[in-house]
């Protein structure tokens, strides 16, 4: 009976919302913007499912209502782009060139590195859209038949790596221009990179945030073309 209660849809939905709120609270309290709520939530939910012996697929199906909201939240990024239209206008050329180069390098480097490390095709399809924000990356991965769970975790790890080491890498490479720093952080490490870019400076943050949505569009177009060619 307890198992039936625990596996009911409201409890499964409540688990997601409750753990997410806890993760956001932990991040706010610790004041570490790099502590991504996803990386805190996932282990907690995995532990819950393992302890009560609940299949992952049952949890996923019970939460389809929450997963569906991924689509509308990507659409809502249209407003984010609109709110940054002044930055787009002012730095159109540098930002566009960064996004074009970044999306091509992102996809091609993943292809070559997957070959080099002799990784399975499953990793390749899941990793190709990894430089863009999670919801768009997952939509692109779904489109090419990649595993969305691997995509989401890969994207979060890219963000975390770039968010932590990005400023250091750019310093070593002598990239100093605020627009260049912002574009690099946003293109390579999306939301987490942008959170760090905002700490560096306002211009860096604005450019970085803009690159998130534009990289998403560029990668969504590029990935299917690239897969058709290769």
């Amino acid at each position, binding site marked *: 009976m307890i198992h039936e209660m625990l596996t009911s849809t409201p409890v499964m939905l409540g688990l997601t919302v409750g753990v997410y709120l806890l993760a956001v609270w932990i991040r706010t309290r610790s004041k570490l913007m790099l502590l991504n709520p996803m990386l805190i939530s996932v282990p907690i939910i995995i532990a819950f499912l393992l302890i009560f012996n609940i299949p992952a697929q049952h949890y996923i199906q019970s939460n389809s209502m929450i997963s569906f909201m991924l689509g509308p939240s990507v659409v*809502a990024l249209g407003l984010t782009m609109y709110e940054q239209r002044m930055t787009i206008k002012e730095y159109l050329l540098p930002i566009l060139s960064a996004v074009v180069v*970044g999306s091509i390098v992102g996809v091609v480097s993943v292809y070559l590195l997957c070959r080099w490390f002799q990784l399975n095709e499953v*990793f390749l399809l899941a990793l190709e859209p990894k430089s863009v924000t999670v919801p768009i990356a997952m939509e692109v991965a779904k489109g090419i038949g990649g595993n969305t*769970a*691997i995509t*989401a975790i890969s994207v979060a790890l890219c963000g975390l790596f770039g968010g932590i080491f990005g400023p250091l890498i750019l310093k070593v490479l002598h990239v100093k221009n605020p627009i*260049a720093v912002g*574009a690099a952080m946003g293109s*390579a490490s999306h939301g987490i990179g942008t959170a760090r870019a905002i700490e560096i400076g306002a211009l860096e943050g604005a450019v970085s945030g803009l690159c998130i949505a534009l990289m998403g569009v560029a990668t969504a177009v590029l990935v299917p073309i690239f897969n058709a060619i290769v």
Partner: protein
Amino acid sequence: MDVIIGFGIIMAFFAAGECLSVLMGHFIPGSVVGMLLLFVALLTGFIKPRRIEKVAHFLTGNMTIFFIPAVMGIMDLWGFIKMSWLGWLGVIVLSTICVMATTGYTVEGVRFLQRQKERKGEGK
């Protein structure tokens, strides 16, 4: 009421994007098409930003929770991932460095050219 209107507008753009995506043979995801349509509609003034602000900020501000359920699919793949986790991390780290370096240098280069052009303009 504004929440329903805002959500309705966003859903309408999502639906339109999905339909266009079907016409394109799912070449680009419907939500990404919807995002571009919404951006254009806001630029042209067809949709007033204040109509959707509340709902859109709620959606973009809490994106993480929407993909947490899908990430749990990792549990069924654990055995598969365990075999090549080092290569997986290697691709993530190296590819991120590649993207960061190339975008950073590209913008530095473009800004350098732009400044030179400005200087030439001043010289005349």
